[in-house]
């Protein structure tokens, strides 16, 4: 066998590892979730009763699914004006300037801050602040978590939309300018419509990020196994309940936590695939 063929086989077989890993993840999550699924069936997803007491063990994931979706969606809403403005700043108003470079680096650094540091900041700085301005009584809950989540996902929402916005052809914009448009009108009627699907895809991917964030949320959401009934309510997300309850888990409880992990895997997979699909459609 010649060396070219061997090289190709090596490339092929090593890159197969990633498929095996991905297949193994699905296999193990499903396998681990089976005992829980056998006991609770699809009721696991619709039940909101989480009780680990021996003898009357009962697990339902609805509060955590709800908590995850609510906090992530709220984070998206909070981060929208911030990241939209930032991507206009970087991709339109101050494109290729020194100040945009500095701002862009700082936004990138936001993505580099570890989740646990965000959690500490939320706990020791943001929480007292929210209590101080009379916004919250205890400072824990959906709102605090969502604000921190919103900051965490800004870099993900910004990077794609800033790129797309800066790629809008100059011809289009210049045509609008020549008709006497102000810059705001160009952005509103030319740039944003042209970049719409890219901006949208960026927010979907950022949403996918928020769904799986663990540490910061665990430290801020208050960890109660109820469906949050508002922004000031405490709750738990799928990721935070795994982080919180894993330590003392075995048997049916462990299986239920793995089941939640599987659901989280599926939900983030779907959300990310939608984002990727939109990006592919654009190209």
């Amino acid at each position: 066998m010649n060396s070219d063929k061997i090289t190709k086989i090596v490339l092929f077989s090593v890159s197969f590892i990633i498929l095996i890993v991905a297949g193994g993840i699905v296999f193990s999550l499903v396998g681990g979730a089976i005992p829980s699924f056998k006991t609770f069936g699809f009721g696991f997803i619709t039940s909101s009763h989480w009780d680990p007491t021996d003898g009357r063990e009962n697990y339902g994931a609805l509060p955590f699914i709800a908590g995850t979706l609510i906090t992530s969606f709220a984070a998206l809403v909070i981060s929208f004006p911030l990241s939209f403005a930032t991507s206009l700043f970087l991709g339109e108003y101050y494109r290729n300037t020194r100040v945009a470079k500095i701002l862009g680096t700082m936004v990138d650094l936001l993505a580099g801050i570890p989740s646990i540091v965000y959690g500490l900041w939320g706990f020791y700085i943001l929480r007292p602040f929210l209590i101080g301005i009379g916004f919250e009584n205890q400072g824990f809950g959906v709102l605090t978590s969502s604000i921190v989540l919103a900051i965490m996902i800004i870099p993900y929402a910004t990077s794609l939309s800033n790129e797309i916005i800066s790629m809008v052809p100059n011809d289009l914009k210049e045509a609008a300018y020549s008709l006497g448009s102000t810059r705001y009108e160009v952005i509103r009627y030319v740039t944003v419509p042209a970049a719409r699907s890219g901006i949208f895809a960026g927010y979907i991917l950022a949403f996918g990020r928020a769904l799986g964030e663990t540490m910061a949320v665990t430290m801020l959401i208050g960890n109660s196994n109820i469906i949050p009934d508002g922004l000031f309510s405490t709750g738990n997300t799928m990721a935070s309940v795994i982080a919180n309850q894993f330590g003392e888990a075995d048997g049916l409880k462990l299986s239920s936590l793995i089941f939640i992990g599987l659901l989280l895997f599926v939900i983030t997979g779907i959300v990310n695939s939608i984002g990727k699909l939109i990006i592919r459609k654009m190209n």
Partner: protein
Amino acid sequence: MKAINEAENISSRIRKDRVFLGLVVFFSVITVSPIILIISKLIEKGYKQLSFGFLVEKTPDTMEAMTAIANNELIPGGIVNGILGTLLMVAMAAVIAIPIAIITGVYLYENQGKWLANITRNVSDILQGVPSIVLGLISYLWVVKYVTNGFSALAGSVSLAIMMLPMIVRSTEETLKMIPQTLKEAGLALGIPYWRVLTGILIPTGFSGLMTGILLAVSRVIGETAPLMLTALGSRAINMNISKPTSAIPLLIWEFYNDPNMVDMIWSSSLLLMIIVLAFNLTAKQFAANRK
């Protein structure tokens, strides 16, 4: 342009334009203010504890910390067990992930448009979106349960390695795509064996791009806490045995956070963690800048 009202006079349109610019700048400044707020807070509260001893001494136990607080002293000791644990686990994760990821990246680049390569690329993208805590669960199911029969550094490394894989795969492929085809063709035309073209031309040419990807991936996993809670567990002792529970800087921060006596140490530990993460981040940026 239907929405631009003809009756709307020019001065109000200009005013709108100015207000919008003001809003954009205002919100952009708000966006980056957390990074300044966070880092300045870490420095303000953490610098006192950062000393040479902090880097070379082990974590004190709760009693020692209590005594120190009662005497109004700084908590003694350091986080060397966490520093070494982070070093061990991240290095091991890098050793596992980098070769696989780079070869996969080369494979994807060399097989553009083929169906198996497309599937591999999509799977890698999906893997990149998997929340880190799920990877912790996976490493628990694979390594903690069946390989080391207990919480271990190896399990921590495996979860971090799975995190790093797709990031490096993607950056490798993107880097190689930017190398001119002619370079590779020149090598092949000279009769250089295929593997030498890959290892002698493609990879050296894309070296700084590959390094950027690797360093960014490393900087991302250094701060990971959640998967390590499920796999490496943590330890108050220095442990270099890969089959034993091991600490890491983020794990220690989590422990300090949960122990009222140790709370003072979260700031210095976080400051150190931030410095390490930023160092990797900025080095990666430097490599990326060198390329241009």
